[in-house]
C-alpha cells in the first residue's frame, strides 16, 4: 500500500485557504507515490462546500462534521484527528496560527515526531524523512531528519510550495464524523475581536514606505514621515514597531497584520521575515534599505541598498525634493 499523507485543509466561510493546494505539492515532494487525503473539519453547509471543492484536487476527502467544530478550536480538532487518523499517519498542517496551536500537541498524542515550519523536502530514504528548515529568522538553514515509520506531523510554511492547480483528481468525500469520539475540552472559544480600523487603510495604498526595527527609536520616525510626504506615500511597518507601540496595529504588514498590494514597497530597516513578506501580495516593486548585507529582504527585493536608514533616508528625501 502506498504511503498515506493527510493534509489538513484550512477554510473560512466556505472558502479553502491558499494552503489547501500547496499541501498537495508538499505531500508529493515527500513521496511522489503517496496517496494524499484531504481532511476537512467543520460544520454544515460551509463544510460541504469546501469538501466538494476539495474533491477536484484530492482523490480522497475525509469530512468531519460536528457543530462544535464550526469554529476550529485547536483543542477540539486535535481530539477529532486523533480519533480518525491511523497510527502511522503523515500529517500536514500549514504553519500559521492554527497550525501552531494544533500541531505540537497532536504530535505528542500521535506519538510521532514533529517537523515544524518546513520550507522544503529532500525526500524519504527507507523510513527517514529529510527536510529543510530555517533558524535565526532565516539567517541560516538546516537539514533535519526523523524516522517516520510511526507517522509524523509536519507544518509546511505557507507560500513555500507551489499550489497544485491541476484539479483533475475527481475524488470522493467520505464522512468520518462517526469516528471522532468525545470532543470535550476545558478551552472554550468565545469570539473573534476584529482589528481596529486605523486612520489610513494601507491595504489600499499604491506606494508604501515601510519601517522596521532599523529605525531604533520612536523619535527617528520623523525621517520616515518626511520621506513618505516627499514621495506621496503612506507609512506602514513591521511587527517590532507595533510591539513597541510606536505605530498603530493597523499599519502592520504581515501574516498577523494587514495584507497589502501596493505598486511600490519601500522596506526600510526591515529584515524580511517570512511572516512580514506573507503580508505583501501582488508582486510590487520592492526597494530594500538595510545595513545588514545578509538581510533576507535582499533576496526578495528588486533593488537593494546597504546603508543605515538613519543616515540614508534623510538624504533620499532631500534627493527627491530636489527632483521635484
Amino acid at each position, binding site marked *: 500500500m502506498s504511503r498515506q499523507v493527510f493534509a489538513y485543509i484550512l477554510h473560512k466561510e466556505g472558502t479553502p485557504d491558499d494552503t489547501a493546494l500547496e499541501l498537495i505539492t508538499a505531500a508529493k515532494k515527500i513521496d511522489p507515490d503517496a496517496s494524499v487525503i484531504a481532511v476537512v473539519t467543520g460544520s454544515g453547509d460551509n463544510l460541504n462546500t469546501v469538501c466538494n471543492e476539495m474533491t477536484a484536487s484530492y482523490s480522497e476527502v475525509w469530512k468531519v462534521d460536528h457543530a462544535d467544530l464550526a469554529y476550529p478550536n485547536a*483543542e477540539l480538532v486535535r481530539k477529532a484527528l486523533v480519533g480518525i487518523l491511523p497510527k502511522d499517519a503523515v500529517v500536514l498542517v500549514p504553519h500559521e496560527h492554527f497550525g501552531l496551536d494544533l500541531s505540537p500537541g497532536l504530535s505528542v498524542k500521535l506519538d510521532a515526531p514533529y517537523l515544524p515550519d518546513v520550507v522544503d523536502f529532500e525526500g524519504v530514504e527507507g523510513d527517514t524523512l529529510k527536510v529543510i528548515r530555517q533558524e535565526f529568522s532565516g539567517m541560516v538553514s538546516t537539514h533535519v531528519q526523523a524516522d517516520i515509520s510511526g507517522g509524523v506531523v509536519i507544518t509546511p510554511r505557507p507560500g513555500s510550495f507551489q499550489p497544485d492547480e491541476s484539479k483533475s483528481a475527481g475524488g470522493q468525500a467520505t464522512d468520518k464524523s462517526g469516528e471522532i469520539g468525545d470532543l470535550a475540552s476545558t478551552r472554550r472559544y468565545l469570539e473573534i475581536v476584529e482589528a481596529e480600523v486605523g486612520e489610513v487603510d494601507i491595504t489600499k495604498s499604491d506606494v508604501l514606505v515601510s519601517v522596521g526595527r532599523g529605525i531604533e527609536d520612536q523619535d527617528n520616525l520623523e525621517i520616515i514621515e518626511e520621506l513618505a510626504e516627499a514621495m506621496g506615500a503612506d507609512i506602514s511597518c513591521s511587527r517590532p514597531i507595533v510591539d513597541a507601540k510606536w505605530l498603530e496595529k493597523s499599519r502592520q504588514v504581515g501574516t498577523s497584520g494587514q495584507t497589502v498590494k501596493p505598486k511600490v514597497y519601500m522596506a526600510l530597516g526591515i529584515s524580511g521575515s517570512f511572516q512580514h513578506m506573507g503580508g505583501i501580495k501582488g508582486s510590487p516593486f520592492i526597494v530594500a534599505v538595510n545595513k545588514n548585507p545578509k538581510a533576507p529582504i535582499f533576496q526578495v527585493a528588486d533593488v537593494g541598498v546597504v546603508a543605515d536608514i538613519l543616515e540614508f533616508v534623510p538624504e533620499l528625501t532631500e534627493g527627491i525634493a530636489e527632483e521635484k
Partner: protein
Amino acid sequence: MEILVCVKRVPDTSENEIEVNSKGTDIDRDDLVYSVNEWDNYAVEEAIQIRDKVGGTVTVITVGDEEAEEVLRREMAMGADKGILLSDEAFEGTDGRGIAAILKAEIEKGNYDLILTGAQADDGAGQVGGMLAAMLDVPYASLVNYLEVIDDKKIKAGREIAGGNQEMNEIELPCVLSIQTGINEPRYVGIRGIRKVASLDIPVRTAGDLGLDASAVAPKVNRVDYFVPEPGEGAEMLEGSTEEIIEKLVEILKAKGGIK
C-alpha cells in the same frame, strides 16, 4: 496563583551576525553574545503583572548548561521570585519533545496553575509549550497577546490570528499558554537589579533528580547540518557614493510610480 515561565538562553540576533561554522555542524558560536529569548521577556512580564494583581509566586525555569543560569537571574531581576535550572549532560542534543519531557518531570513535582512560554525561540519551531500541555493533559493556547485572570479557576486569553484579529478563549486552569510579543511592555533590567539577585540560590536538577533516563530525552528529530542556501538572483544592489545611489534610486522610483 502559582505561575511558571519557561525561558531559553539564545544567541542575541541583534548583537551578532549568525554564521555557519566551517564544518557546517553548528552556527559559529565563538564570541557570540547571548541573552534571554525575546518572547520569554514578554511571558515573564505578564506573569509578574498577574502576580502583582492577584498574588502568588512567579518561578522561571530553563533547560541548559550552567551558563543558562544568567538568564534565570536576569528574569529574577525583572521580578520573578524563584529560578530553577534543569541541567544534565544527558539533556544535550535533545529535541523539542525532549525539552518538554524534562520540563514535565519538574512541573509534576510542583503545583502550578499557569505555565507560560514564549511563542517561539531561535529555531522558530514554537513547539515546546504545545507538547508540554499535551503531555500534562491540560489545555493549551498559542500566540497569546491578551490575558485576563477571571478567577482562580479560569482565564480569558486572546490569540493573535490573521489580519490583526484576535481569537478570544476561556480556559480552565491549569493550562499552558505561549505568549506573543506586544502583549505588554517588558520592564527594563539594569545592572543594579541583576546585582540584587546575584546571591539568590538557584537550585539545579539533574536527570537523576527528575527520574529521567536517557530514552526519555533521546531526540526523535535530528539536525543533520547547518548551511546557507545558494543565494538566488536577489535584488539589484545599488553601489557607489551615496550621491550616486540616491540619484539612481530616485530615477528608479520615478519610473516605477513610487514618487507621486
